[in-house]
């Protein structure tokens, strides 16, 4: 045993993985002789984690057909050589007990009949065709989970029917952040250069609370190099040790913080002058900011004015190696009435810092142009159905689509891996929206709350059971990650989303070309990135040059993809949409300082991603062991209400009432409570999740952010009382 370890040494995992992967697909483990070697023969398949949108690339070792080790790709910017708790915990997802294995169709009595695939595909294909013909392609729509294959095939199918209405479920929540950024810069996301930054202001703890390993590695490096990392949240997360400072603010108020930082920074002549060159309407914004002093912001946010002043000073000093980080900020991003404007304000403030595409600053993620691809995106002639109601939403708004369905404007709705009943505000409203459609199709590996509301349920293969469309990730050094099938399907009659969409297209006789296999599409897409698909499969994740790309390397952006070619402080579109022309203070809508009323905040936990993972046994068992589904309440407030740690409490408002365990803590501000999302799966088919926690969204009315169309997931107040008292 000693030998094994000394002989192999502590080779860096990265080097080992790369070398093994490069040497072919069949590998020998640490065997001392031939007999043992045979025993340990593993094949290595490069794939990706599908447990969250970061889609970390990893090498899956397969021994005798079953999954052995999983090793994160060292070259993947998010995996950074490992995976997170969710990645490891979901790797064996195909083994979940409750897999669906037969297409189902709801009968008149409301029960499901098993049907065969041909029937299901033919009926769905022709229903979609009938709707598209009779009521126009606008009347059909789809929501996917945004993973590459689901999104690629589903949007292609809908476009083939003439409909542009394919939305990403994530956009339910990150619409306003992406759109606010786009409104200002033309780019809908960016990536801080953590490792080289001098000052990073992180809005919302979840960058570190629901982390990908790459981001953590970057923050670790920054901290080691002496960077100032400020975490702004109304709750201090478990992972706060990654930051050097914590700045507590009232929930929903950091727009005020950012506006006052901008106010201070623009008083710095050097920064102002440098910024003016690349910003359109800076004067106007500066004028609009005149009242937003640190004292003013202190009143609103609860953060001390001198902390705000000194933060603005360190930002100014560190610029351009400094930025404000809203990361995905989807949840928090899609949560308050002011988050689109917050994103805009952040984009503008970062521009003032001069941080774009410079070392230690932040890199904008340039979208890939796929038009030269053999399977180029299919254009449609109509505009997306949510564009009128949510004109600012950069890729449309899934939540607005739900509203339109509720109002009867959508007839056919396909839901691919999107559990909209569980994940959108007011589950009853969403159920009604699904019921209002004449055709609803759920494509899903397991019977979810959403699937139960659909007319057709199609059993799907999970990620590890089929090949996938490649994913481009990272802004600073973009990579492409490929994904092959790892294990044989655990069920014999489920199909991949690619097969399902392709067969619907062919049954409907649509003219748009679909690839024969996912691999064919993947190869074509890789081609477009000047990358060899087979080569990529051997290593999993490969960097590609900037040949096809706009901005990547260390070059400041000369021309921004906006109307003026500059970063825009003033937006006529925003003005027309009922949002201010340049970002100003907007208060969150649900504010009530009555004693005993709390704002219900939410967010992700390190352990879970969406309801899909809540049901996975290794993750659910940890959630149970540590009571992670409990509701956080400030200890002083709890003492006043006679609530002790672990007590059962009743959480209540006009929309819902539920009982769960209290987590009494000093880690949260007194005026808010926190309930992690993705619990409260009310579905007896999901056995592990079924008795875990309460659904936060059921306390929230169905309401959307003006212009942006994001659901207001944190605009609700609740009372907390000791249960039975």
């Amino acid at each position, binding site marked *: 045993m000693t030998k094994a370890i000394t002989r192999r040494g502590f080779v860096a995992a990265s080097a080992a993985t790369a070398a093994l992967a490069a040497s072919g697909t069949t590998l020998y483990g640490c*065997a001392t002789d031939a007999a043992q070697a045979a025993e340990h023969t593993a094949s290595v398949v490069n794939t990706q984690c599908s447990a969250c949108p970061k889609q970390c690339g990893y090498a899956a070792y397969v021994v005798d057909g079953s999954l052995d080790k*999983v090793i994160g790709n060292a070259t993947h910017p998010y995996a950074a050589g490992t995976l997170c708790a969710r990645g490891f915990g979901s790797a064996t997802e195909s083994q979940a007990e409750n897999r669906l294995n037969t297409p189902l169709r709801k009968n008149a009595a409301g029960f499901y009949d098993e049907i065969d695939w041909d029937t299901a595909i033919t009926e769905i294909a022709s229903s979609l065709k009938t709707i598209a013909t009779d009521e126009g392609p606008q009347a059909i729509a789809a929501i996917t989970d945004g993973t590459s294959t689901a999104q690629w095939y589903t949007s292609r199918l809908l476009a083939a029917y003439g409909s542009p209405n394919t939305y990403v479920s994530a956009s339910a929540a990150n619409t306003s952040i992406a759109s606010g950024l786009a409104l200002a810069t033309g780019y809908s996301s960016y990536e801080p250069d953590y490792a080289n930054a001098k000052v990073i202001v992180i809005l919302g703890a979840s960058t570190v609370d629901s982390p990908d390993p790459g981001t953590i590695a970057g923050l670790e490096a920054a901290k080691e190099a002496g960077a100032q990392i400020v975490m702004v949240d109304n709750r201090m997360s*478990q992972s706060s040790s990654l930051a050097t400072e914590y*700045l507590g603010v009232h929930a929903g108020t950091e727009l005020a913080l950012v506006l006052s930082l901008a106010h201070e920074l623009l008083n710095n002549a050097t920064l102002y002058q440098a910024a003016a060159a690349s910003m359109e309407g800076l004067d106007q914004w500066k004028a609009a900011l005149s009242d937003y002093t640190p004292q003013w912001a202190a009143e609103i946010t609860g953060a001390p004015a001198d902390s705000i002043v000194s933060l603005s000073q360190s930002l100014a000093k560190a610029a351009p190696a400094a930025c404000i980080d809203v990361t995905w900020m989807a949840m928090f991003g899609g949560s308050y009435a002011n988050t689109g404007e917050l994103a805009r304000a952040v984009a503008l403030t970062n521009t003032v810092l001069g941080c774009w595409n410079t070392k230690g600053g932040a890199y904008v993620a340039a979208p890939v142009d796929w038009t030269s691809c053999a399977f180029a995106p299919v254009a449609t002639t109509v505009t997306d159905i949510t564009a009128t109601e949510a004109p600012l939403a950069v890729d449309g708004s899934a939540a607005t689509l739900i509203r339109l369905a509720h109002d009867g404007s959508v007839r056919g709705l396909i839901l691919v891996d999107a559990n909209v009943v569980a994940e959108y505000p007011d589950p009853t409203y969403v159920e009604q929206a699904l019921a209002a459609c004449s055709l609803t199709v759920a494509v899903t590996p397991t019977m979810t709350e959403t699937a139960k509301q659909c007319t057709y349920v199609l059993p799907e293969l999970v990620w590890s059971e089929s090949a996938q469309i490649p994913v481009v990730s990272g802004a600073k050094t973009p990579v492409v990650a490929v994904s092959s099938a790892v294990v044989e399907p655990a069920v014999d009659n489920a199909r991949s989303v690619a097969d399902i969409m392709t067969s619907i297209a062919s049954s409907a006789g649509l003219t748009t070309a679909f690839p024969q296999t996912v691999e064919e599409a993947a190869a074509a897409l890789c081609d477009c990135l000047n990358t060899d698909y087979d080569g990529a499969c051997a290593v999993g994740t490969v960097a590609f040059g900037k040949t096809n790309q706009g901005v990547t390397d260390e070059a400041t952006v000369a021309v921004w993809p906006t109307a003026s070619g500059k970063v825009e402080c003033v937006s006529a579109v925003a003005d027309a949409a009922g949002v201010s022309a340049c970002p100003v203070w907007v208060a969150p809508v649900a504010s009530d300082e009555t004693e005993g009323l709390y704002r219900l905040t939410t967010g992700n936990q390190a352990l879970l991603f969406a309801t899909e993972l809540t049901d996975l046994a290794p993750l659910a068992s940890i959630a149970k062991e540590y009571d992670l589904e409990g509701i956080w309440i400030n200890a002083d407030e709890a003492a006043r209400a006679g609530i002790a740690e672990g007590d059962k409490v009743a959480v209540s408002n006009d929309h819902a009432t539920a009982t769960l365990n209290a987590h009494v803590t000093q880690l949260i501000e007194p005026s808010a409570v926190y309930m992690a999302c993705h619990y409260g799966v009310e579905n007896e088919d999901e056995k592990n999740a079924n008795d875990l926690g309460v659904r936060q969204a059921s306390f929230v009315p169905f309401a959307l952010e003006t212009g942006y169309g994001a659901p207001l997931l944190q605009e609700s107040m609740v009372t907390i009382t000791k249960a039975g008292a």
Partner: protein
Amino acid sequence: MMTRYGMLIDTTKCIGCYSCRTACQRQNDLLPDEGFIRYEHKETGTYPTVSVESVPLQCMHCEDAPCASVCPTGAAHMGADGIVEADQGRCIGCLYCMSACPYQVRVRNSKTGAVDKCRFCAVQTENGTTSCTCVEACPTHARIFGDLDDPNSELSKAIVERDAHPIAGDLTRAKIYYVR
């Protein structure tokens, strides 16, 4: 010279992310409810001047291992290189070792009834892992594995530099060192 394996866990770096636990479960093929690592959490202060610490615990591979001294069958025993082993083929599942372990880090396999625990799995590396999985998986590099008897090992040096100590002082002469 003998090897005496040990580990360092730097709780000032640990973010309580559970990666080490699910990674250990995956790479060592444990049952979904079988976790070799458990966590204790401690918060201090009042909002907003507050802090929180996570302490991952797992088998300390004690030199004076109470689990091994109470185990009637010898299933729990001191193995080679200072690694305390849990022989699944000998264990009758009397759970005596679980009661005797002062750190509460032994777990009963709910399928076989036998008791298991951290294996210092670096010695079983193959198929991509090169050290203990929990060490490799930790995104903050809060863990170091190595030879305590080699004063030049990364581990021995870090123990001295960071002034690391077993969690319960001299009790059981544990071989996991903590930085607090």
